[in-house]
């Protein structure tokens, strides 16, 4: 992970970029998008399918025209610059390997284009290292892409991208066709390569684990709109809205319907009138007679069979107890609400056992029921 040095210069910048599709330009795929990447940063663009993340990457690559807005690489406006002039490395989900070239020829293609001689290529240390690290089977080097499995083709495409001496590397789901074990291994390998190469990477994925594992900063998009940009820990601990809060984290954040009553600014959980203890930041600042959504991460919910373990708690019933090896997971019912928490592996509970739940008041989030915006900063 690179230090996010505030002074390091901005490498890529998007200003109010818009993209429309459809004959009548009626599909607004990317809306007024603004974000930047600093030099040597690893940025992941994360979102569900159709959120505009791939369109964004294709616009950065120059493969897709932008309808309005500006893209800068450093100080240079590249909005109308063709892809070939942008000095970028590209790897896509669908490989785009040259079918008439062997695996090896595909990999060295970017070097050849830049005029490297056979001697240069032979002496290129990174080439051997990349082939080794990304586990390109040496016996397949002389075969043609059609003989490769989806996973092998994807790794070939990734190596072809990284062999280039580019300013910016743009990667779109480059590990999606690998089996689970290989995907995790290659994720680490990619992270190690980024640390070594010290270049700017922009990486598109729908997989929150991948984005978290790889990125210095994550850009979260939904319906073509940027939701939040921040470091993994910022996104995790300070989500700006319920979408971000629910999209990130496994097991996911717990959401409870809560309300305040007339002439009272304490919070109650719906359906059971469970009163919650609140941190000072919320106290006396909640509007009376108002509904909110309370969000709390599973690890911030504490459980005990002994009421005296907590200063304040509510009683719930165990619905499911799961032993997951390293950790145990508990699903509880509090009235109509379902609450999940993780507990130490040596602690066990039976189904239907009555337990006491304590919410860590410092780590509660409140969301507006209508806009779903996180209200934490307002308190």
């Amino acid at each position, binding site marked *: 992970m690179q230090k996010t040095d505030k002074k390091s210069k901005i490498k890529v910048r998007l200003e109010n970029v818009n993209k429309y599709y459809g004959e009548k330009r009626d599909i607004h795929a990317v809306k007024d998008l603004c974000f930047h990447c600093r030099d040597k940063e690893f940025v992941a663009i994360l979102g569900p399918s159709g959120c505009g993340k791939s369109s964004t990457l294709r616009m950065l690559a120059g493969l897709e025209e932008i309808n309005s807005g500006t893209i800068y690489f450093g100080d240079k406006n590249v909005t109308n610059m063709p892809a070939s002039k942008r000095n970028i490395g590209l790897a896509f989900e669908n490989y785009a390997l040259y079918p008439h070239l062997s695996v090896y020829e595909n990999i060295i293609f970017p070097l050849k284009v830049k005029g490297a001689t056979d001697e240069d290529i032979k002496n290129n240390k990174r080439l051997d290292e990349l082939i080794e690290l990304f586990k390109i089977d040496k016996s397949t080097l002389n075969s043609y892409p059609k003989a490769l499995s989806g996973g092998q083709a994807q790794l070939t495409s990734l190596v072809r991208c990284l062999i280039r001496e580019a300013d910016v590397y743009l990667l779109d789901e480059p590990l999606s066709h690998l089996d689970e074990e290989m995907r995790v291994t290659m994720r680490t390998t990619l992270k190690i390569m980024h640390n070594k190469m010290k270049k700017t990477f922009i990486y598109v994925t729908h997989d929150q684990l991948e984005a978290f594992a790889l990125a210095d900063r994550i850009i979260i998009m939904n319906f073509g709109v940027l939701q939040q940009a921040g470091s993994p820990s910022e996104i995790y601990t300070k989500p700006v809205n319920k979408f971000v809060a629910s999209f990130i984290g*496994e097991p*996911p954040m717990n959401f409870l319907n809560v309300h305040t009553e007339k002439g009272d600014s304490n919070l109650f959980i719906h359906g059971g009138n469970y009163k919650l203890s609140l941190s000072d930041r919320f106290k006396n600042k909640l509007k009376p007679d108002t509904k909110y959504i309370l969000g709390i991460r599973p*690890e911030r919910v504490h459980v005990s069979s002994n009421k005296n373990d907590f200063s304040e708690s509510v009683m719930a019933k165990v619905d499911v107890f799961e032993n997951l090896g390293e950790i145990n997971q508990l699903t509880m019912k509090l009235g109509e609400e379902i609450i999940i928490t993780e507990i130490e592996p040596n602690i066990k509970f039976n189904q239907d056992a009555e337990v006491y739940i304590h919410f860590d008041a410092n780590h509660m989030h409140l969301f507006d029921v209508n806009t779903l915006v996180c209200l934490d900063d307002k308190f």
Partner: protein
Amino acid sequence: MYRLEVKNITKNFGKTTAVKNLSFNCEEGETITLLGPTGAGKTTTLRCLAGLEELTSGKIYLDGKDISNIPPNHRELAMFFENYALYPHMTVRENMAYPLKAPSRRKEFNKEKIDKRVQEIAELLQISELLDRKPTELSGGQKQRTALGRTLVRKPKVFLLDEPIAHLDAVLRHRMRGEMKSIFQKLGCTVIYVTHDYREALSIGDRILVIRKGELVQLAIAEDIWSRMNNVFVAKLAGDPPINIFKGILHTEEGNFKIELKKQKTDIVFESKKENLKKWEEKEVLLGIRPNNITISTIKKPNSINGTLSAIEAMSSSYEITVSISEGKMIKVKSKINFKDLLNKPIWVNIDSERIHLFNCQDEESIYHGRIL
């Protein structure tokens, strides 16, 4: 008497043996998960139980009755496949009621009974409000529940489930895992459940049957699969990131045991009262240590290996750290601390020697487990 008794079953396809002399018993109300990598023989085992594959040899008993040669439709088992097929022209209610409308069940289930049963299962699966919808109007999870409901209405003696939630997205899979466990418990179902996902297997199974190349490797409760694994195979199968394994030589030293890791130029010292460990003295052993039982420091401590911190990957509330040690080997560490400032720098990884596992170097069978949990 067991609900299901599987005795020495073997299934050959031509010259390949998919299931080899497999035996296990399942109590009434028990859930057994079959865990193994792709091609281990999990699905074939399930298909043998269902009667969809003829046994090459062996016997299967249901409540003491030999069902080995009984056709699938008379076995009183219900099978649920991963690729659920709902009838698109039928509503959720009709889809769920379908298995009860078979001519053979006409005596047992009249219209009233069918309605009642569908309603009961729908409530349990939380799809009561969807009963009049068609499959096209359902989300992925709702379709999955409907398909599960169609299996559950039948009240068979044993449910056979093959990767029922594998192709759902992460969030939904997570939720369904807990829900299924809860439903099985509430209905008191006897279940054989196939999965390749160790978390699912540990969570759902009262016992977990680990299978490799058609053979039983271990049949145990989750705690034992995690902490008292039979061999390296089981150790590697459960855990993400997987357990770290090193080769070393076991010595005794002043009443303690010591594993000399030659390649890492380190000794790992630990105490044990287990006498039978002495017979492995001066022999090659494999040391296993889980990523969450390793810490990182900048100074040398006892039981540590030096390396370079080469990658930090953030997880939800922890970090997965990769440390490169000698000869291109990597160690995985799980930590609550980021260690961002130590990236690409030399560091020490400290092994909690109380929590190591030792395996025989030849057959990789377990010889020692450190402190449990």
